[in-house]
């Protein structure tokens, strides 16, 4: 038998690449942005965040953009929990509520400047997540889902009775301080151009979207992020490899809820009004649909998902009455055949979700990337080379 003789042979280690070569490889791998997509994507996003509101004043575009941005931040957060860590949660509206009312208190009542209430909302959300995590993580599957649903109702109970801050179920108006240092982003003036509240808000929201995507990107590249994905891929193998399941998932929870808090704070700024009634089961389902349809566990999934899901109601409202099967919400109930625009959106949400789950579980991001690859191949005249697996 030759195996016993391998004892002696294998005492030597095969030659490794030169130390400096290896060092350079590792340095490259730990650099800030790895692929051209992320590098240019980050630049493009920040650019768009600042430039778009400066060149357009179309209220429809701005309103849509702001809504999409707000939901994106919440979805990016939920994606960390759902997509990357494989945990199911319907509780995101609860954390948005926490962030929203923190903002009302700190940015509205106390009128502290923008960075203060944004940070406060993130911290409040994160703290709420920190408190909830030990409860939610002790449970599996159904129990976890139902518990997260329960959080919405408990949140409702807490906030509806805190009338001084939240205005009960009627809600409260809140004009949050939009100052970033000396600049009032709610009434931006550059040179002799005076920009509207919506334009300034758009900028704030999308810069924060970029920041949250960046944060999540870095977390995923760290050991905590890898541990999250490891737990999702194989819970047992991850634990046996030394991953502390509770600590890792708690981190995911806290990140998810902190981002939810920020989203909630921004939610208040759009209408300058908020009510606990808005943070309900419908919103929970919206978030789940956004994250799933966009693409679970992808970087752009939450944003694309938000774009699609938030656009539909606004677009439906616009074309209602024009297209034969769409009526406006205000049309009389029996005025001929047609789906009210509001219901149409809900219908589309459901259909999209089911179609994605059945046919493309990786979400819209995957469809787009495959499409993009095909287009690129056609344009560059490449033949697809089959990749070797060895």
């Amino acid at each position, binding site marked *: *038998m*030759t*195996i*016993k003789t*391998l*004892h002696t*042979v*294998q*005492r030597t*280690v*095969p030659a*490794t*690449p030169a130390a400096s070569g*290896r*060092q350079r*490889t*590792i*340095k490259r*791998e*730990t650099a*800030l942005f790895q692929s051209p997509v992320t590098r240019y994507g980050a630049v493009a996003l920040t650019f768009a965040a600042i430039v778009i509101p400066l060149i357009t004043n179309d209220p429809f575009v701005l309103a849509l953009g702001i809504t999409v941005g707000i939901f994106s931040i919440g979805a990016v957060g939920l994606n960390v929990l759902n997509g990357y860590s494989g945990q199911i949660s319907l509780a995101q509206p609860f954390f948005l509520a926490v962030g929203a009312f923190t903002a009302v208190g700190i940015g509205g009542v106390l009128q502290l400047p923008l960075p203060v209430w944004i940070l406060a909302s993130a911290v409040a959300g994160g703290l709420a997540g920190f408190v909830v995590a030990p409860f939610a993580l002790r449970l599996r599957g159904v129990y976890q889902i139902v518990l997260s649903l329960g959080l919405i109702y408990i949140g409702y109970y807490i906030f509806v009775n805190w009338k001084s801050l939240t205005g009960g179920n009627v809600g409260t108006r809140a004009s949050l301080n939009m100052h970033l240092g000396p600049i009032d982003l709610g009434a931006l003036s550059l040179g002799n151009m005076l920009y509207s509240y919506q334009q300034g808000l758009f900028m704030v929201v999308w810069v924060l979207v970029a920041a949250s995507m960046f944060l999540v990107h*870095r*977390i995923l*590249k*760290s*050991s*905590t992020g*890898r*541990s999250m*994905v*490891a737990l*999702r*891929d*194989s819970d*047992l*193998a*991850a*634990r*046996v*490899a*030394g*991953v*502390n*399941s509770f*600590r*890792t998932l708690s*981190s995911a929870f806290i990140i998810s809820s902190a981002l939810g808090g920020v989203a909630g704070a921004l939610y208040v700024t759009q209408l300058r009004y908020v009510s606990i009634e808005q943070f309900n089961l419908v919103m929970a389902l919206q978030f789940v649909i956004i994250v799933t349809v966009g693409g679970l*566990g992808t970087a752009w999934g939450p944003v694309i998902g938000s774009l699609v899901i938030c656009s539909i109601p606004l677009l439906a409202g616009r074309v209602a009455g024009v297209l034969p099967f769409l009526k406006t919400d205000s049309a009389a109930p029996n005025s001929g055949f047609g789906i009210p625009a509001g219901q149409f959106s809900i219908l589309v949400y459901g259909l999209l979700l089911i179609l994605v789950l059945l046919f493309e579980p990786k979400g819209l991001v995957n469809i787009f990337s495959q499409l993009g690859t095909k287009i690129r191949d056609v344009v560059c005249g490449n033949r697809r080379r089959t*990749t070797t*697996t*060895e």
Partner: protein
Amino acid sequence: MTETLLSVEDITLRFGGVTALDSVSFEVHRREFFAIIGPNGAGKTSLFNCLSGMARPTGSITLSNSQLVGQRPDQIARLGVGRTFQNLGLFLTMSVLENVLVSSHIRPPAPTVAGWWGRSKRVEFAAREHAYQILDLVGLADFAHAPVSSLPYGTRKRVELAKAAASNPRLLLLDEPVAGMNTEETEELIAHVYRLKYQLDLTLVLIEHDIHLIMDVADRVLALDFGNVIGLGTPEEIQTNPRVIEAYLGIEHGAAAEPALPTKRRA
């Protein structure tokens, strides 16, 4: 050389009316190549589950001075126990390097959240260097960025091995590492196992069906059947142990030179 690393005392594991392990006791010496054999259902994997913290028996399991029974799997991993899975516990959405990186952060400990400032960056750097070294030892450095899901079975087994070794364990548990492999592949994998053993100063415990392989590599063997210890000794002793032969075949062992024990080798 006969310092005891792992001491298993009177382990009994019961669930749902089944007794998987019944008063199992043995010791593993440092730097030993220890094997566990037994027919299907003998309790080998249950024993591994107890050793890695995935099952909770009565009795005592000590690694050097630490009691393992009652600890969580990740705590046991930090104490220095690594383990491979028979059905491969790989993280299929990640690359080879990332799979190994998950284990590489155990030493030094402390998870880092942001990977780019100061100390975190140095920790990440050190972990990557360590991960690459492990990959070198099993010859997978060229596949570092290949997604694990695209690799053939044999290569995946090597990744599983690297992943288990990357946590710098003192004790490495290998659950049928060469199952489904032919002679060549088996020799190759065992060569990698040896290399890791010597470079990382490991103590190995191996679950295996193939008596030929055990004869070649093991220092001592533990034979199990229906959760009971039916033999403990050198491979020669085990091979001629009548209880062991009966467990495999149920007939009396004659004086034949070739023991009629099953082999999983394909020529």
